[in-house]
């Protein structure tokens, strides 16, 4: 039985095990039908031309965790940004871990999707927001069909949330292969500000496939800063589907740091429903071996006087492959749009590949849109210059690569987070230098 059949046939059993809230029940049923019709995307689809899921779909994934697993904090502390005070919503093999978490209902709700989907007090929010941003594509639909657990964050208006929120999904590898489908919902009301850090981490080398959906709603004047750390083990793959709906004068940023994992596909979608919105999409990808990272972005400018800024840097070594597909749609009504997109890549090895494809669909006539894409190699003359000053080749390379990514890193607003990313980069490049540029 292939994975699709297995999932479709598991659906009934899944539904029997969860509380049947009628509305969610209908949404799930609809979604499984959509997934059944569409199946997993193949390379024949334009949006998946450069990313094949074949090599990760052939595993015999266990769809539901059979038993609850526990892990000690000291064993996983390094995956937390632990030197800051933060809220934490932590999952182990898809199940909420209360002892690793620190949730709150004090003025804001930082808690669980499973609670939000079943308790009456969240009913209205779920009705208004759940599955209202996610598309009907096959993978988000698959997630919707099985959506049960994840982080639920609701920030009412005029709240400045001083502590960042960390969402971490751990896979213990207790099964030979695990499929995980977390579902996050984040609603930030008028004039509020929140910072969120998301990470998926497997703790063994057993294959893990995560098909995650995060819906974010940034209401009027809200500020949402979202950071994704993708530095998983070499048999862990991630399909990240993130949908962000913005209302007027809101600012939403997503930074995606992709260093680890087997295959990563980021479907990052911004929809601007209002004027004077700013959307910021940034990413640093540093990979090697046979790793594959695909950034598929969409910014849909629907109303006038809005901005979007995209800046993705990629460094590809060994036989790694990268994809950047950045789509910007400017509707006819969206006059005075400023949309910028830049994708710069360095190929460190002869066998590495990057496919970079800007896609601009502009229907308004008074806009500023620009895109730029570069693919190059490390500057040999810069290398000699640095080496002639006593900086060894490996360190010189690392310094150049770090400098190359620095534009993206410098906009990270949490200093401890920036330090952590810097450390991960130094680790990845096998050097022990400070990079305090």
């Amino acid at each position, binding site marked *: 039985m292939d994975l699709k059949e297995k999932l479709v046939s598991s659906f009934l059993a899944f539904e029997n095990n969860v509380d049947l809230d009628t509305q969610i029940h209908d949404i799930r049923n609809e979604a499984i039908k959509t997934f059944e019709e569409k199946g997993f995307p193949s390379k024949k689809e334009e949006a998946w031309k450069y990313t094949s899921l074949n090599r990760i779909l052939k595993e015999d994934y266990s769809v539901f965790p059979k038993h609850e697993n526990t892990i000690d904090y000291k064993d996983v502390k390094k995956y937390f940004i632990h030197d800051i005070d933060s809220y934490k919503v932590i999952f182990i093999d898809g199940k909420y871990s209360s002892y690793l978490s620190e949730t709150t209902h004090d003025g804001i709700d930082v808690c669980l999707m499973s609670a939000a989907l079943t308790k009456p007090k969240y009913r209205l929010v779920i009705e208004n927001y759940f599955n209202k941003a996610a598309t009907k594509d096959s993978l988000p639909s698959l997630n919707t069909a099985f959506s049960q657990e994840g982080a639920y964050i609701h920030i009412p208006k005029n709240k400045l949330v001083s502590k960042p929120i960390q969402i971490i999904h751990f896979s213990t590898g207790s099964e030979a292969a695990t499929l995980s489908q977390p579902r996050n919902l984040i609603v930030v009301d008028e004039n509020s500000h929140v910072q969120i850090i998301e990470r998926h981490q497997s703790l063994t080398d057993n294959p893990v496939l995560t098909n995650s959906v995060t819906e974010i709603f940034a209401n009027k004047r809200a500020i949402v800063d979202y950071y994704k750390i993708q530095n998983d083990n070499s048999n862990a793959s991630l399909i990240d589907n993130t949908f962000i709906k913005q209302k007027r004068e809101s600012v939403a940023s997503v930074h995606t740091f992709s260093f680890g994992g087997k295959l990563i596909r980021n479907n990052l979608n911004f929809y601007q429903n209002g004027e004077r919105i700013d959307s910021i999409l940034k990413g640093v990808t540093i990979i090697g071996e046979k790793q594959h990272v695909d950034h598929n972005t969409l910014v849909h400018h629907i109303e006038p006087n809005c901005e979007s800024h995209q800046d993705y840097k990629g460094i590809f070594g060994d036989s790694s492959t990268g994809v950047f597909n950045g789509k910007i749609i400017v509707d006819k009504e969206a006059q005075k749009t400023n949309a910028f997109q830049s994708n710069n890549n360095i190929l460190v090895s002869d066998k590495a590949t990057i496919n970079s494809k800007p896609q601009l669909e502009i229907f308004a006539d008074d806009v500023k849109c620009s895109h730029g894409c570069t693919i190059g190699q490390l500057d040999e003359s*810069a290398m*000699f210059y640095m080496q*002639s000053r006593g900086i060894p080749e490996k360190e010189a390379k690392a*310094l150049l690569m770090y400098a190359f990514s620095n534009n993206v890193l410098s906009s990270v607003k949490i200093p401890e987070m920036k330090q952590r990313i810097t450390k991960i980069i130094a680790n990845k490049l096998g050097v022990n230098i400070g990079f305090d540029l």
Partner: protein
Amino acid sequence: MLKINNLHASVEDKGILKGINLEVKAGEVHAIMGPNGSGKSTLASVIAGKEEYEVTDGNIIFEGEDIEELAAEERAHKGVFLSFQYPVEIPGVSVTNFIKTAINESRKAKGLGDMPAKDMLKLIREKADLLEMDRKFLSRSLNEGFSGGEKKRNEIFQMAMLEPKLAILDETDSGLDIDALRIVANGVNKLKSKDNAVVVITHYQRLLDYIVPDFVHVLYNGKIVKSGGKELAHELEEKGYDWIKEEVNA
């Protein structure tokens, strides 16, 4: 300190250096002059260890050791410094962080720990003052958007920080106005001692009014064709290089 014997070097199979012999002792200043394309910058790059150049014959002995097989950074750790004719722009790496990394990597190679941050800062300030550099300069990206003069001043600043045994200044005077030239030359002179040596590569005699050489060599067509004292530089300034070419070709 430096002994070059019958050095032949080529790039992409094209022979550029065709038998250079040169000896530089501690405490000396040597000037290497010559017309464009004679191999001056190649000589500098070969000594510093640029990989593009292939040494096809002869050797380079530095402090009694053949350095031919050493990587550029290893030569730097032994005390070789090259001031670039065209310093490379490195966006995103500040002057301070660059020199800090360079110093600490050199210390690491010598088995020493990182220089304490306080000492580093003090040293950086002291050397920046020596080169009359604006402090703001130190937090800017390395050479990015620097004027020609600023780039050269930054080269000598790095030299001052690294305190090499052998400093090769490749066309350090090009692009410098008279004030910058004076500051740069003054910096070099202050760093000079009986224990180190300077090789000045230049097309013109102008810099040699400030950094006075003990020996002047004329490089032409990949060979040193004439050597003399500082008066040779004046002669070249006055008469140009044609008479040298004629002498060689005769």
